[in-house]
């Protein structure tokens, strides 16, 4: 790994963008401006950014209900994202999907998903398509520790392993499956251990360390492109917000949250980038300012966008 200053700043800015996007979303949701359910990615930024940094244009991603971070890391357009959250015609899904179904096929982004663990077999299929076409494409699936208890996890890892599919399964272990802590929902500490059952390598990384995730993903992606098959990466991290906005979070302690906040992935990356002269305090301020105004523009765009016409209700149920 040798990251250029330019690349480092790009990754850092993406983490900041996710953070600011999500914090604003929380606020807008609290004010009642966003309907439905939203699940925020605050605190987990390093995983999306560290993994997606290695993807090429023709690669695929399957995301989760907590999907905003993945799309931003992939270069998604925050205007269309906010417009979708607001249920506007100009949104990614013309207002038909909302937060849990944002997709951008032009970025190989096969969508957030409202069903926990649903992305795993989908990404086995997308990885199969890459292999079938014989390009060097890879497919990445993000999912949580909770999803690792679903049958989809086991079936997809097994299938990807026997067919040596170019897939990278990234478990964002944020220690909670909704309200159930990991120790109550599985009898293992490391989801990575489960890889052995399917004959693929499984590794655990510090998910709050951008560079740890970056390196792990670099090797896994390399392995997939070389035709050596899938990898399971367990990224140990923590969500700062509840499972969904409005979650009273009665199942964990404030001390635990504060301990994890001390491991803020953005602060950690910033500290090291400053130590090595990649970033100065002024440059950092400028990045946050620029991102904040980009996010404000996105919100304004969404608010000023029209609602979808009622006639569109029956559009796109089928391809013509």
């Amino acid at each position, binding site marked *: 790994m040798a990251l250029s200053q330019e690349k480092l700043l790009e990754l850092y800015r993406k983490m900041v963008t996710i953070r600011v996007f999500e914090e604003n979303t929380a606020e807008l949701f609290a004010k009642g401006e966003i309907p439905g359910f939203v699940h925020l990615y605050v605190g987990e930024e390093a995983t999306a950014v560290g993994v997606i940094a290695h993807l090429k244009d023709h690669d*695929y991603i*399957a995301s989760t209900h907590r999907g905003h971070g993945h799309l931003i890391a992939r270069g998604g357009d925050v205007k269309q994202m906010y417009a979708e959250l607001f249920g506007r015609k100009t*949104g*990614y*899904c*013309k*207002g*038909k*999907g909302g937060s849990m*179904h944002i*997709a*951008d*096929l032009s970025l*190989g982004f*096969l*969508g957030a*998903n*409202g*069903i926990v663990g*649903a992305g*795993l*077999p*989908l*990404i*086995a*299929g*997308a*990885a*199969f*398509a*890459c292999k*079938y076409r014989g390009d060097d494409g890879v*497919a990445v699936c993000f999912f949580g520790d909770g999803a690792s208890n679903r*049958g*989809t996890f086991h*079936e*997809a890892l*097994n*299938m990807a392993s*026997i*067919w040596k599919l170019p897939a990278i399964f990234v478990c964002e272990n944020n220690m909670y499956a909704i309200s159930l802590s990991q120790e109550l929902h599985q009898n293992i500490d490391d989801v990575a251990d489960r890889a052995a059952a399917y004959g693929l390598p499984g590794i655990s990384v510090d998910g709050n360390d951008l560079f740890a995730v970056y390196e792990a993903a670099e090797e896994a992606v390399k392995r997939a492109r070389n035709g050596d098959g899938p990898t399971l990466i367990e990224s140990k991290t923590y969500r700062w917000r509840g499972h969904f906005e409005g979650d009273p979070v009665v199942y964990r302690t404030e001390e635990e949250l504060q301990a994890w906040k001390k491991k803020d992935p953005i602060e950690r990356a910033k500290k090291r980038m400053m130590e090595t002269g990649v970033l100065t305090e002024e440059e950092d301020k400028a990045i946050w300012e620029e991102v904040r105004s980009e996010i404000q523009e996105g919100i304004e765009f969404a608010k000023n966008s029209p609602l979808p016409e009622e006639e569109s209700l029956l*559009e*796109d*149920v*089928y*391809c013509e």
Partner: protein
Amino acid sequence: MPEMTYLEAINTALREEMSRDPSVFVLGEDVGVFGGCFGVTQGLLDAFGPERVLDTPISETAIIGASVGAAAAGLRPVAEIMFMDFMGVCMDEIFNQAAKIRYMFGGKAAIPMTLRTPCGAGLGAAAQHSQSMEAWFAHIPGLKVVMPSTPADAKGLLTSAIRDDNPVIFIEHKMLYGVKGSVPDGEYAIPLGKGDVKREGSDVTVVATSLMVHKALAAAETLAEEGVEVEVVDPRCLVPLDQDTILKSVAKTGKLVVVHEAVKSGGIGGEIAAIVAEEGFDFLDAPIRRIGAPFAPIPFASNLEKAYIPSEETIIEAVRSLA
């Protein structure tokens, strides 16, 4: 036109579409070396190789999930679920993923996949290997549901299903696999959503699906001897449903019997009856009769299974009661 079995017709459609379009591939349990549980995919592995004919682990969820992912990524998977009864195992992938992705994504994705599966009782396979669950799928916006009754329809409809950009549930009847009929040579595609009048008649309309089409035709022969002319309509597709052909027939006969092998209660026959009641009430000269299986799981013992499956005699009696 060559004579071939329903099974051979499906096999032919698969071969032709795989030859025509390199993005078509087949996957499922035992579809390769074994040639499919009922032999439908026989010979495909030799013809197209293991890259395009994939034997999967016993993982229905992964079979359909991977088909959805591959379809979203631009391929045209044709997945086989060995028995329709196993579709509960992969239901999320069908009804929350395949069916809804296009709509949820604002029309920005297509899922051009076909899911082939055999339904139907008659082999003494009991409650978990004999069911007809088509109504489940017809209830889900985003899916197309096809149920061919003849070899020719099987070929023509499967060809269209594979070419269709939507997810299509293609339901074969396992008791029809050996049924012979003439099938058009070469490229043959029947548009999805076009019903077929299998026998013309003026007295009573019988709308029947899949195997029941054959029972309805046999019943019509018997009834013709009694001077009752039955028109047998095969919708062929449940979604989209050819309402016009059904209504036109009822307009002619004024009487309707709907027959399917699935459990009567909550079955697709209720939907067809309701459509006719809503759209063609004035055509009706008698109450609509529905025939379907009783509200019980499918029994094993031969005599019980025979009593369970709607019979030719039941159809005859229903028609007589209206004629």
